């Protein structure tokens, strides 16, 4: 590890530094007999962090395995256990990883697939926490983890928002879910809940989110100092460390760097930015470089994506009724009706000054993908932007073909060019 102090690091270095530190802290916690919790990515970590529990995020961990081309080994394990390829590949990668860790713990021997895996080493959990504010897969997946490992499972149940804005009843119900989780944690930890720390953690979370939103706002400038694909990378910390200052420090640094770049007239794009696209859906982690380059080669920069915006979890940290926090955790755009989803996306496209849209029909993620066909048509009716969709998967490389993707991206580029030319005539 470098000798540099965090205060001397660039944002990119901070990102790597804190990611590694979080994993190390989880391993240390395990070694020292402290509790480790595996958590769904948009489940509220505030309660666990207030109880000093080390957090690990399987979705981010699986994304990392995918990006390092290690998904297939984990998927094989899940395949053998009988998980259908139709199940979310984050879940399958993680269940495969868990199974290997479990085998190691029971036999004392490290299975080969684990020893050779490029995955960051994380410890087995002592409890899990999940929330169905982004999908219901996360319920069954975490219940299975808990059942396989015989550990407690905290579920934050969040009703789907068929209408917006979120109703008071719904907020009260979710706030109750938080309170219920608090009493579960008191039993699991064997000590009273630390309300003072809980308050501080909420405040910290809001400071992190404020910096995250500063970054996301940078894509509105033209040329954009922010490459949307960077958000996919920095997302790791908004997921894993939003309730810690690690996220705040890193995001502040990154936002400062972007502002500086913008002031100097620089752009994230090496070469001329010819058009700007929205990427709807999760990244294709095993092919992150290729998917980015296909766009870059034709002068397209990604300046809009609703996915990283799911972590715009702004709420009033002083609201002790927890209604505000409840509202933040339920309004994630995929937990809302189609109409609201369309509005969220329209705003993102407008803010990013996008010229076209790329929809990822992600075999893993039903909730995001199945609505995309309808979403795309509704959006085009409103803003007239050309769009294409491609088949893919966030972490199962067997469900994505670069050539098919490139053809569609190129066609989108040509349609955007055509629109520009027609506009100029």
């Amino acid at each position: 590890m470098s000798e540099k102090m965090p205060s001397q690091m660039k944002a990119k270095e901070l990102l790597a530094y804190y990611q590694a530190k979080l994993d190390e802290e989880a391993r240390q916690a395990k070694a020292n007999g402290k509790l480790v919790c595996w958590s769904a990515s948009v489940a509220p970590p505030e309660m666990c962090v207030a109880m000093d529990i080390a957090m690990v995020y399987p979705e981010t961990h699986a994304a990392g395995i995918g990006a390092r081309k290690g998904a297939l080994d984990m998927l094989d394990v899940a395949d053998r256990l009988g998980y259908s390829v139709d199940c979310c590949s984050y879940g399958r990668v993680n269940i495969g990883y868990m199974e290997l860790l479990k085998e190691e713990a029971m036999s004392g021997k490290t299975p080969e697939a684990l020893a050779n895996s490029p995955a960051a080493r994380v410890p087995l959990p002592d409890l899990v926490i999940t929330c169905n504010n982004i999908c219901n897969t996360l319920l069954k997946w975490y219940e299975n983890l808990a059942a396989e490992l015989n550990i407690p499972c905290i579920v934050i149940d969040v009703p789907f928002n068929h209408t917006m804005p979120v109703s008071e009843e719904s907020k009260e119900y979710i706030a109750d879910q938080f309170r219920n989780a608090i009493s579960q944690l008191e039993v699991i930890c064997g000590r009273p809940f630390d309300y003072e720390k809980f308050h501080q953690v909420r405040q910290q979370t809001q400071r992190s989110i404020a910096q995250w939103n500063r970054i996301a706002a940078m894509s509105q400038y033209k040329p954009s100092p922010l490459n949307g694909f960077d958000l996919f990378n920095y997302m790791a910390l908004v997921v894993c460390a939003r309730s810690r200052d690690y996220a705040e420090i890193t995001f502040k640094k990154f936002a400062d760097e972007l502002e500086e770049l913008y002031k100097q007239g620089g752009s994230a794009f090496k070469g001329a930015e010819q058009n700007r696209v929205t990427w709807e859906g999760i990244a294709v982690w095993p092919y992150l470089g290729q998917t980015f380059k296909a766009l870059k080669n034709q002068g397209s920069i990604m300046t809009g994506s609703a996915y990283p915006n799911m972590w715009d979890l702004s709420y009033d940290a002083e609201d002790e009724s927890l209604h505000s926090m409840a509202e933040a955790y339920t309004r994630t755009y995929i937990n809302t009706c189609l109409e609201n989803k369309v509005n969220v996306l329209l705003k993102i496209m407008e803010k990013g000054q996008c010229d076209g849209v790329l929809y990822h029909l992600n075999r893993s993620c039903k909730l995001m993908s199945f609505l995309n066909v309808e979403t795309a048509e509704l959006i085009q009716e409103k803003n007239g932007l050309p769009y294409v969709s491609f088949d893919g998967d966030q972490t199962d490389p067997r469900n994505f073909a670069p050539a098919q993707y490139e053809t569609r991206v190129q066609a989108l580029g040509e349609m955007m060019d055509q629109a520009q030319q027609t506009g100029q005539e």
Partner: protein
Amino acid sequence: MYTMGIDVGSSSSKVVVLQDGVQVVAQAVVQAGTGSSGPGRALEQVRQFSGLTPEDMDFVLATGYGRTTLPMAQKQMSEITCHAKGVFFQEPSARTIIDIGGQDVKAISLDDRGNIRQFYMNDKCAAGTGRFLEVMSRVLEVDLEEMASYHFRSQSPASVSSTCTVFAESEVISLLSKGTPKEDIIAGVHFSVAAKACALAQRVGVRSEVVMCGGVAQNSGVADAIQRELGQRLLVTHDPQLTGALGAALLAYEEIMRKGKSA
């Protein structure tokens, strides 16, 4: 001035040479696609016929899945844009295009200037593609070229409803074992391809004229099934397999014109 369009698809390679952006002076089709000797052989055919090689061209533009593998091409464009261009050149009244190739089915909607309004393609599935027909032709032991004549002899087309190629193959096998006439099975296969293509066309919005291109358009049985499924007239481009290459050659010509303007 000569321009060349090369369309290297998944199962065939096509080349068109245009003079001054209007006249086709040479063309070739070889039934071998990307990664094979197909592109080289198609270029060789063009040379033998016209004496012209890529070096004689003012611009070479490539399209199709193999578009990035051709060192002689100065530019690559997607087959969506190339097909749209090629069809509109041949048939300026075209507003909806159905293009069925080896592994793709697409529906493209055009405005009255030939610009693409919207397009949809099949997802990762062979249903409704040339590959689907190839599989069926093998099971039925009927050459692809002969399928149309069987189609037109059918009295009551069988129903082949599965989307999945493997399922449809079993369906066809069980029809065969039940003694269903091959004419009826083949017509059923064509209607199943038509259903897939028409569903895409309906998504882009069917507006006249509807024009079909791509290798599968050579099978007049499929064209007939599509026409009946749509319930409206379907035109087929001249040399439908070459439409993409023709579009590429036209776009190559536009490329030179644009450069000329800006120079």
